């Protein structure tokens, strides 16, 4: 059967190529959307989970915006006073309260995000060091600024601070790669924040009592307590609505693919009316002819699907990796996505072939022969 389709395709190479490309664009969009959105979801999960806290304490304001700013290393207008730290630590069930100050400063003359914190950060980060001193540098920023252990760096914004690089972290694929972690006081000085904090990351002793602890902390003045899971759910909800729009656009591209294939197949039926008439005259049944066109459409769609998956893979490597949340998202590839794309291609093939195949199957051989 395949050789018949290949042989007859020779007559209309250009149109066939255009149809394959049309389907490929729809499938490529779908594949890129699936792999990129999975990458963004994964990145969001990893980043929020990577905060290492069961509760995040934030200043007044939109908690999601403030959490994103914390993850992105951007300074905010509102801050938590550092004097609150002892009171936070005294709240029942609080195991540790890790202060954090973030912002963008010049590091050796180039803009980079700094993350000021205390020794307690080692409770929530696995850096493989015994003592937090000097500057601990994320792998990306180390590469960008050509930093190595033992080198001195200068932080500069509202004040200057010189620190020794004590550790270059292994790449994590997360936001930690983009931070220069420095002692809290140094960060506050350079950022001109005095005794203010961007956030406090709270670890609890008993996970089961997290809710009570959250409410106890939330009652403190000028502080809001937010569980990372809540932030994750809300941000995923926001991303979900964007994703739905993208899926709708992809759906339109796929419907366009169906209509293009249907048009090509219908044209092919009219062009090959003579061949179909002869086939019917020499004994091909309506079912034979119907099958021939469905197979043809299916093969064209599968070729488009295969090309689309390859294009989608390549495209997702070159598309901007930064999501709307400012997260570095690595596209996630899965055989399931390949399966979904193949199924979509098969559906395009079958749906678009039904009408033209019916027209072909209904060809009356005698009518064709009389017209020849």
């Amino acid at each position, binding site marked *: 059967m395949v050789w018949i389709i290949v*042989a007859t395709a020779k007559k209309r190479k250009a149109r066939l190529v255009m149809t394959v490309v049309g389907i490929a664009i729809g499938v490529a969009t779908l594949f890129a959307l699936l792999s990129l959105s999975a990458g963004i979801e994964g990145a969001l999960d990893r980043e929020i989970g990577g905060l290492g806290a069961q509760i995040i304490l934030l200043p007044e304001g939109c908690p999601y915006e403030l959490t994103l700013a914390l993850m992105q290393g951007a300074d905010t207008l509102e801050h938590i006073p550092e004097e609150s730290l002892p009171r936070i630590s005294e709240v029942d069930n609080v195991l540790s309260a890790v202060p954090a100050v973030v912002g963008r400063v010049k590091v050796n003359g180039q803009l980079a995000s700094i993350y000021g914190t205390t020794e307690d950060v080692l409770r929530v980060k696995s850096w493989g060091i015994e003592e937090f001193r000097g500057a601990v540098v994320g792998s990306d920023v180390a590469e960008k600024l050509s930093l190595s252990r033992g080198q001195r760096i200068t932080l500069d914004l509202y004040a200057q601070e010189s620190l020794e690089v004590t550790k270059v972290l292994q790449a994590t694929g997360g936001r930690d790669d983009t931070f220069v972690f420095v002692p809290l006081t140094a960060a506050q000085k350079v950022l001109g924040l005095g005794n203010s904090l961007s956030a406090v990351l709270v670890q609890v002793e008993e996970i089961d009592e997290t809710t009570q602890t959250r409410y106890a902390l939330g009652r403190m003045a000028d502080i809001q307590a937010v569980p990372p899971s809540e932030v994750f759910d809300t941000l995923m909800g926001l991303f979900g609505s964007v994703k739905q729009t993208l899926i709708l656009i992809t759906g339109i591209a796929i419907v366009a693919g169906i209509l293009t294939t249907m048009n090509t197949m219908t044209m092919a039926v009219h062009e090959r009316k003579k061949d179909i008439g002869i086939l019917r005259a020499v*004994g091909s049944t*309506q079912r034979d002819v119907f099958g021939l066109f469905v197979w043809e459409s299916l093969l064209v769609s599968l070729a488009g699907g295969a090309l689309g998956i390859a294009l989608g893979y390549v495209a997702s490597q070159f598309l901007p990796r930064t999501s709307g949340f400012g997260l570095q998202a690595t596209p996630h590839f899965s055989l399931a996505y390949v399966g979904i794309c193949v199924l979509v291609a098969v559906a395009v093939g079958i749906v678009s072939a039904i009408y033209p195949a019916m027209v072909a199957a209904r060809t009356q051989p005698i009518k064709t*022969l009389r017209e*020849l």
Partner: protein
Amino acid sequence: MIVELQSVWKAYGEGEARFWAIRDAGLMIQAGDFVSVVGPSGSGKSTLLHMLGCLDKPTKGTVLVDDESIDRLTDRQLSLIRRNRIGFVFQQYYLNECMTVLQNVLLPLELAKVKDRKKKAAEALASVGLGHKLKAYPSELSGGEQQRCAIARALANSPEIVLADEPTGCLDTETGEKIMDVLTDLNEQQEIGIVVVTHDEVVAACAREEIQVRDGRIS
């Protein structure tokens, strides 16, 4: 196999434009016959051939295939009769230019999912002297070779009757004679029934029986 037309009438068009292509025709063809159908253009020869080949149904009268009226047969059953028992040869050959000689003959067998189809197609081509041109394309063949390829396609599924509509109409005299030799051999050696529609008296003379058609009537 016996195909019989009983008081067959065939009309085209409606109302005042109605035109009777066949009028009260009676005819019986069976395996082993060699019949030529002769008459001027528009006399109804091809219409007669189409009805013998179960491609068309009469307006009035009956077409019987082995004593069964084709009116009672489904489109699929009629297709299977054409596939397995009747072969068609056309004046213009109607070969697919994108396919090799072998593929052209293989095509109806492939769609029918016939067993050993490649072997059968090659044998049919060998029987018309084209066994050495299996991989050639129609454009690489002479007119006579193309018509022999079309005959091989008609023979591929071992039909009992071959219906040929002006098979030599596009060929020069010498090539036309060769084509008629092929059809005569098929009739004599394999006892395949042959019905040839032609204008050419020389071609008509190859048949054992000649039927004249004039204004839709057989004489």
